[in-house]
């Protein structure tokens, strides 16, 4: 509830899900669900920030998710910083703001975690860090996560949240898709487990790479999961597309999500899956 501790303006009654929602962490006494459009008193969203009506999981920072998902966490690679390879105008300022907002060096938090006493390499993408976009440091941190998991023979759990490629890093952002994919493959070829948890939103180049390469793919209720943006599809095809085309439930219906797990149940579900895949020492007679 740390976000609400910072709440200063008690006069605010309604915070609407506005277009810039992705750029600021919501604060205010009232929260409107962007999916079912009902408004709730913030306390009603509970510890997990989920909609009491439709179970949609509100966008939360990586550090907030970390708080209730793990029992112990050792962060990795928090000192890496992008070189701004295109010298993109105002990118530095944007990064600085994102770092301040999320307390991260880039759009993913990575490290070694314990979930119900089981060790796992954990990555959590942050939708508030430039829309969770895939930059060079995001890709580097994820690659190192899979490499370390391979070395230590550990499973990987990755909670995705991303608007896709980091435009400000151009082709280098695109290269991250191939780089991380190769690391996922090496980890997979060693017989190690990878679980992806698709959270709102998981789109573009992240969907077209590591979000869709797991052994087991979970998703949060009503999370937006897709490749192309809705507006791009409508402008290209001159077709109106249904609102729920890219909801987790539709994506599951079409066969690309193993299970939809409400946020309240996520830790237990992951713990169960980790335990299920635990390598048992075989004793030969």
């Amino acid at each position: 509830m740390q976000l609400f501790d910072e709440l200063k303006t008690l006069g605010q009654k309604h915070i609407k899900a506005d277009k810039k929602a992705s750029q600021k962490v919501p604060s205010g006494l009232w929260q409107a669900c962007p999916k079912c459009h009902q408004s709730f008193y913030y306390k009603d969203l509970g510890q997990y920030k989920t909609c009491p009506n439709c179970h949609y999981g509100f966008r939360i920072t990586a550090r907030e998710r970390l708080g209730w998902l793990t029992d112990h966490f050792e962060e990795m690679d928090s000192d890496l910083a992008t070189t701004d390879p295109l010298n993109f105008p105002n990118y530095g300022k944007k990064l600085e703001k994102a770092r301040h907002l999320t307390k991260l060096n880039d759009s993913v938090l990575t490290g070694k975690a314990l979930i119900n006493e089981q060790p796992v390499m954990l990555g959590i993408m942050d939708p508030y860090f430039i829309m969770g976009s895939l930059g060079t440091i995001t890709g580097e941190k994820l690659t190192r996560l899979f490499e370390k998991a391979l070395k230590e023979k550990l499973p990987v759990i990755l909670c995705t949240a991303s608007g896709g490629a980091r435009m400000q890093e151009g082709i280098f952002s695109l290269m991250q898709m191939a780089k991380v994919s190769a690391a996922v493959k090496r980890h997979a070829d060693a017989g190690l487990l990878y679980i992806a948890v698709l959270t709102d939103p998981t789109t573009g180049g992240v969907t077209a790479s590591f979000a869709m390469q797991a052994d087991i793919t979970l998703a949060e209720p009503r999370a937006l999961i897709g490749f192309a943006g809705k507006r791009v599809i409508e402008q290209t095809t001159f077709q109106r597309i249904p609102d729920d085309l890219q909801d987790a439930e539709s994506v599951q219906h079409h066969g690309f999500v193993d299970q939809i797990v409400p946020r309240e149940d996520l830790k237990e579900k992951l713990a169960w899956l980790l335990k299920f895949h635990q390598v048992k020492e075989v004793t030969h007679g």
Partner: protein
Amino acid sequence: MASLLDRKKTAAQVVALARSDEKIAASALLKGIFTDFTELHGDQEGADDSAIIGGLAYLAEQPVTVIATNKGQTTEEKMQTHFGCPEPAGYRKALRLAKQAAKFNRPVICLVNTAGAYPGKSAEENGQGEAIARNLLELSTLPTPIISIIYGEGGSGGALALACGDRIWMLENSTYSVLSPEGFAAILWKDSSRAAEAAEVLQLTPEKLLQQKVIEGIIPESHSQRRLCRAIRKVIIAEMEQLQRLKPAELLEQRHLRFRKF
């Protein structure tokens, strides 16, 4: 490379030339580079996408597998191929044929000219993201040489899915970028009319990409399609020779390092 140095084109000019109607068609490349091309259709999962043509051919008397994106030439073909934007079935066909190539130990040659993977309702439903993701995953360790030539537009993940192998060359008048200059300008500046400026910022020309080690080389274009095909052919044969000298483990280690450096 003389023509590159003779007169320097702006990024926007390169974009226009990459998209030009004059650009050599997939069918002409298949005919001009290879011998005895024979097409293999379908992803064997229920669909056949005409935006990707795949098949078998000889190159310098060696069997190879060819995968080419296809923008089509007639209006009907253009509609059918969504102007060269593949559906998930296209990427699945490409992967099926690439795996077949590995089984029979023949190189995979990809000819890429696409604005990107098709953004449509059916593409979403059929798992466009998953199809590209699977190509990236599987091709990263496919034990046979994979050479890609970007001959027009190299649009984002839709191009990367066919350009994630051992060598990537680009024609002089081609582009490779994370998204189109128009899309880039619209998203970042809310003004798609600034596309020319976006093309510069994106650094999507072969020259820039060569400097950044995203590609291995640039093939000059000429007005003669025959001469162009001969130039491409020469590059592919030279690269094939080099890659075929490597042991499978060396090939895959090099491929890994090729992308690990970014």
